[in-house]
């Protein structure tokens, strides 16, 4: 008991405080329409970081499927998904958070991957190696902090 307490305390000191508060992927509460009201880290995200997560191939790689005019200097934006220009006029912050965390809760059967989910996969692999990964080692595609950063970026995309 005492040792566990010390370990937890050490984790709080070592990790950035925002992460210590994060909701685990299995504990996120989605409403009936797939929206998530509370920040996954308990704090607002950073829009500038979010734009990086959005456009970096090895991170969110959202541009592989979505175009965003505000990121015009990012090459090769895909069109499997809709353009996200003006997305914040169409959806609230809560809805956007739900879509980014697990789009399948908003759009049944969508091709958009679930970025904050760790179970329920068929033949999950270790990143892009083609090798199997044990279920307990699966981490979400994006961290809670990265999700919040992307959400902070997307809520800036307004036409009106």
């Amino acid at each position, binding site marked *: 008991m005492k040792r566990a307490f010390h370990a937890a305390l050490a984790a709080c000191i070592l990790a950035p405080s925002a992460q210590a508060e994060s909701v685990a992927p299995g504990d996120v509460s989605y409403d009936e329409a797939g929206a998530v009201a509370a920040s996954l880290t308990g704090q607002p995200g950073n829009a500038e970081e979010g734009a990086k997560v959005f456009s970096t191939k090895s991170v969110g790689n959202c541009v592989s499927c979505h175009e965003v005019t505000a990121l015009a200097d990012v090459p090769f934006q895909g069109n499997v998904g809709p353009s996200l220009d003006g997305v914040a006029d169409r959806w609230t912050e809560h809805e956007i958070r739900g879509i980014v965390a697990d789009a399948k809760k908003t759009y049944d059967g969508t091709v958009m991957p679930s970025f904050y989910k760790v179970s329920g996969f068929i033949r999950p692999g270790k990143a892009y190696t083609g090798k199997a990964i044990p279920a307990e080692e699966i981490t979400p*595609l994006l961290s809670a902090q990265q999700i919040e950063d992307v959400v902070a970026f997307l809520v800036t995309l307004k036409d009106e």
Partner: protein
Amino acid sequence: LANADADEDTLTINGEIEIVTRTAAPDHVDGLSEVISGWHFRADETQALEMDDFDNPGMLGVEAAMEVWETAEGSEGKACADCHESVEETMKGVRAVYPKYNEAAGEVQTLEMVINDCRTERMGAEAWNYTGADITNMVALISSVSRGMPVNVAIDGPAAEMWEQGKELYYTRTGQLELSCANCHEDNYGNMIRADHLSQGQINGFPTYRLKNAKLNSVHARFKGCVRDTRAETYAPGSPEFVALELYVASRGNGLSVEGPSVRN
């Protein structure tokens, strides 16, 4: 870049072999009305490389296999040519009907499997690596003599069970990205996924010479790459799962011409 559909060009190889690159989808394909060769989704310069054998880098593999065809190997001291004579005559039409159920073997076989059977059972030679250069060159040679003929793999009778299994695999969403073959190649062909222009993922053009890795690529090597890209555990080349998937994917291209070796990026 947005919305670059399949183009309207037509493909004739060496000014004489007319290739059917678009045609009505076979009845057994629910999700498509038209089937389209991957050639239509490539840039003009890439397309042009396939229109003349002197420009097609995949033909170097065909030439290499031509020599192997004549060369005796293994404990029986036999070459492919000793039993099959002229490849242009005996292998014409073969590519078009594979994978195919083989009565004697009691299973659906790919070209790679029959070739390796001839090597191990009839020549006393070692099996070639399933996706290696030797076998892929040989498949390219055998494909090349069927160019222009319609793909026509059988999906009924003893092949039916494996075809169903392949279909199931085609629509299963695998890996941490939870994507099926159909998500990319049926729902989204014509769209861009990052820098890649998505085709229907047809295999009538295999083996494909890819400019990206500068070699001939086999069907199962491509399947492996696509499954890996869903962040999934892949199946092994030559596995029963990939043989089933090949049978199913080949059948989605029934009616397109055999086009291999083709050129892709």
